[in-house]
């Protein structure tokens, strides 16, 4: 049994590498940067931002995000048309092939609410990004003060 399994191992490995090459997941081609959270006082909902770059020939689709630190994470989009600021929930965000999508203040963002324990400025938390094909990408987001305008020097 042992010998048979050991002999089979290289074939299994080769097989799985081969399979990965053909069916690479969306998450494998996504590079996340400038990931930060604007921390607001108390248990007010916070906005999370990140730049997603897609190195694949195929577009990728961000569907949702989760983190153990917040009970609710929603993909939102702000708009300011006709002088009125609105916020709407969106189903997904496309990251074009060999292109990027930015979640940034005043546009697409993740709305984090119902924090388990309050976030402190400077802290890093993991947010898992979920893509349309079911693949996931764990990304570290840095907590920035309320009056920050970007991810800060550390993430430039």
């Amino acid at each position, binding site marked *: 049994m042992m010998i048979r399994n050991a002999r089979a191992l290289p074939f299994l490995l080769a097989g799985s590498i081969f399979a990965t090459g053909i069916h690479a997941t969306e998450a494998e081609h996504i590079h996340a940067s400038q990931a930060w959270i*604007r921390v*607001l*006082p*108390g248990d*007010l*909902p*916070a*906005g999370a931002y990140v730049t997603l770059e897609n190195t694949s020939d195929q577009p990728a689709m961000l569907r949702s995000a989760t983190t153990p630190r917040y009970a609710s994470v929603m993909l*939102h989009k*702000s708009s*300011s048309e006709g*002088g*009125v*600021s*609105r*916020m709407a929930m969106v189903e997904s965000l496309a990251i074009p092939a060999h292109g990027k999508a930015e979640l940034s*203040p*005043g546009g697409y*963002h993740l*709305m*984090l*609410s119902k924090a388990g324990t309050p976030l402190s400025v400077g802290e890093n938390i993991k947010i898992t990004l979920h893509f349309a094909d079911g693949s996931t990408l764990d990304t570290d987001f840095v907590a920035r*003060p*309320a*009056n*920050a*305008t970007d991810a800060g020097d550390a993430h430039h």
Partner: protein
Amino acid sequence: MPLRRTSRLAWLFALVLGAIMLGGCQRSDAIQWQLTDISGHMPDLDFTLVDDQGKAVTGKDYHGKVVLLYFGYTHCPDVCPLTLAQLHVVMQRLGPLADGARILFVSVDPARDTPEIMHAYVNAFDPRAVGLSGAPREIEALSKRYRSAFTREPDKGDGQYEVSHSSAIYIFDRDGKAKLLSTPDRPQDDLVHDLHLLLSQGNPA
């Protein structure tokens, strides 16, 4: 022919006269604002609200300060913090002059925005920001006064809701007179330029 020359001369005269008059006007009010000038088009600053210390305040309490009036709410995680963070940068760029200005953040969600929440919220952005809340009818009156609007969006089922609101920033001079209108998409330099001028006018220092 002479008639034509006369009329041409008359036109030239009118043009020169017009240019002189225009020049004269500019000299008497030499300020070239970058933002939208609303002088005479919007009423003076006036309201009866509650500040973030729980104290009843009126528009007159802010006379002597240049006021930046902005409507929003604390459960707004993206646009309101972005606007307030941008205003904080503008205040920093103004240096000591900024002490002559106040950011009045008026809540369009008085049901959730108590003075305590407003206090923590505005102070997270800038020490010169004041959070104003109050009776819904007073907030509505202030919003209508500046032709602004807000709408409470339907509940998402968990008691949470969003409020759509005007993105404008109304700027008043030290006498509470409406002067300028800005929007978040305007370059920060324009705000700094105009506020610098407003704050330098009649600066007691």
